């Protein structure tokens, strides 16, 4: 019965394709647009061959399989592309955040659609025509910039990671890199240097901090030392070649390379220069961590070096033989100079190969070729950055902080590979 049913699906799918083919490519594309998109251009890109069975995922694949692509003209060009319908790579959302599927990505750029999200009052809809950024406080000339104004200034492009400082979870074996530390992502950002705007408004010498404020429902605020503004802070309006995504701060956000994600205030609407920090809720009640002696550490801006093996990881089913261990390493203090991998429970460490060019404050891909003979073991990686900082083990970090977790927790992640090859997080 089941076979008959799928045969019927194949038959109709093929028939429809054929009819469309007879109508000609352009006409087919137009039909698809009218029928399925309701004016949405993105949906117009739905491949012709998968249109009929879109409601049923098995027949989507079957329709593609039966059509010998060398015997049927392919679909026509579209206004905007989509990932292959075979690919199911997704973020993992909760009410306030959404995690990047690190284990499913290649290279170091996070596709914009998969960049992690964290917001405190939802994603606002901001009309770019009405967008304004006000810079005032301890400046010679308070100014208002429109989005078009920001784009008129000399532009810069920088590839760097943004990581939420609360980015370590553990506690059970069935956890993927996405669940453990999926609040880090990397994009190529384009915008204007904040220092350019600082000169434009004439930041006074006495100004030592600035407040960055978002135009979302949480009216997010963080105090930032002015020195970061003169150093490498940017106002970014583009991400991976297109406008910044709404979840990432459309139409413009602050970008503080290497610093905890929360400080790169999204939907930036105001910057106020000041001679003291403002002690906002996000830098007192949140984004502070307990450290040695029962103290609470504040203004811990820089993200320390970190790495994770993304393959093999949970939920990989590992095969015996050659394995290319893959992962990413990053540091907010400059460049990664070395990543060490252990395949023997942490007894010995070997250098992994780094994929160049190694960029400043950026996810850096590493690889290590290993032959798994089928013996139970634990594999792990540790990052070393240009300051000589070595990513600590969980025990080392917990002892140094006298704490078991919280913000800025970046321990080595260990994957246990049992004889079955079913990789799990070592707990």
């Amino acid at each position: 019965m089941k076979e008959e049913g799928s045969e019927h699906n194949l038959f109709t799918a093929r028939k429809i394709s054929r009819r469309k083919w007879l109508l000609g490519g352009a006409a087919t594309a137009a039909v698809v647009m009218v029928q399925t998109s309701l004016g949405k251009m993105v949906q117009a890109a739905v491949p012709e061959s998968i249109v009929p069975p879109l409601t049923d995922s098995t027949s989507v694949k079957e329709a593609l399989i039966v059509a010998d692509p060398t015997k049927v003209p392919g679909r026509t060009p579209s206004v905007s592309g989509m990932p292959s319908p075979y690919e199911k790579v997704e973020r993992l959302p909760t009410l306030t955040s959404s995690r990047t599927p690190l284990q499913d990505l290649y290279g170091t750029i996070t596709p914009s659609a998969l960049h992690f999200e964290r917001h405190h009052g939802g994603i606002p809809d901001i009309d770019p025509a009405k967008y304004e950024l006000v810079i005032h406080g301890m400046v010679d000339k308070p100014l208002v910039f429109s989005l078009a104004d920001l784009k008129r200034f000399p532009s810069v492009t920088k590839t760097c990671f943004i990581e939420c400082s609360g980015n370590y979870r553990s506690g059970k074996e069935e956890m993927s890199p996405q669940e453990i530390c999926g609040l880090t992502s990397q994009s190529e950002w384009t915008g204007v240097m904040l220092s350019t705007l600082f000169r434009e408004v004439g930041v006074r010498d006495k100004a030592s901090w600035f407040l960055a404020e978002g135009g979302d429902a949480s009216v997010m605020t963080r105090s930032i030392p002015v020195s970061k503004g003169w150093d490498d802070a940017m106002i970014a309006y583009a991400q991976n070649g297109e406008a910044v995504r709404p979840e990432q701060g459309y139409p413009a956000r602050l970008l503080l390379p290497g610093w905890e994600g929360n400080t790169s205030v999204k939907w930036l609407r105001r910057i106020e220069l000041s001679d003291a920090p403002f002690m906002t809720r996000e830098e007192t009640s949140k984004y502070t961590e307990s450290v040695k002696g029962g103290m609470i550490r504040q203004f811990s801006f820089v993200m320390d070096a970190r790495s994770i093996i993304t393959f093999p990881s949970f939920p990989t089913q590992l095969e015996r033989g050659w394995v290319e261990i893959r992962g990413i390493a990053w540091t907010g203090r400059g460049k990664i100079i070395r990543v060490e991998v252990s395949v023997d429970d942490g007894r010995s460490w070997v250098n992994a190969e780094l994929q160049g060019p190694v960029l400043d404050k950026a996810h850096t891909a590493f690889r290590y070729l290993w032959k798994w003979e089928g013996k139970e073991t634990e594999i792990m990686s540790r990052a070393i950055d240009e300051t000589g900082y070595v990513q600590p083990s969980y025990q080392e970090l917990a002892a140094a902080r006298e704490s078991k977790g919280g913000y800025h927790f970046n321990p080595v992640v260990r994957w246990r590979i049992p004889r079955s090859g079913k990789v799990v997080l070592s707990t």
Partner: protein
Amino acid sequence: MYKRILINRYVVALLFFVISAVVIIVTTINRSRSKHPDKFGIGRAAKPEEIAALDIDVRPDGKGLPAGTGRSAAGKLIYEAKCIACHGNGEKTETPLLGEALFLNEVPGAEGASNGVVASSEKAAFAKASSEVKASGNAKASSKGKASAKKSSGEKGDRSSKTIGTYWPYATTIFDYVRRAMPYNAPGSLSNQEVYDLTAYLLYRNHIISENTIVTEQSLPQIVMPSKKKFVEDDRKGGAELR
């Protein structure tokens, strides 16, 4: 003769070379300078009223606080109407709150709560505030929490023990945050009067001030929060040492 002419030719060529090099260097410097002017003349002047409409931040020194007085009795009514659904009433709940607990009836980490006392110099401000509105009482610290003072607040991911009284280093942050972001479902909807009253109520429920203490723009920045002394600045600098 011949030689001299030759030398002269070399000298001339050298001079020509040096001069043109200087010209090239000077023009490139000038050009790169003109590429990066100090100011581009982009953007328009911000009007004072424009800035005033946006500038809602409140600093710990009180800069940005509007004039006003807050009473916890009034704050209690507002809290019960607009906040309690998400933040609870200080009870330990099984089901997680939509917002988190802002105060607890049983204070888990009120260690050092004596520091919640308003320092003597600040008593003046309170006295002034109190006399202004004929209110009784001075800021009073809780001594109740002392018995269970063992556990350090906010530690080990124990979210429930992180409250305003056990974790927040500045009282002004309450005013700033509640005014800008709460209630979550209607942010920015509270009047300054409501925010003042709520601030007084939250300070009272956290045992930072007494029930009858009035909060004003002068007294709020003077309040010393119990956890302030625990806050240290980041001392990590990279390198081998783990912090």
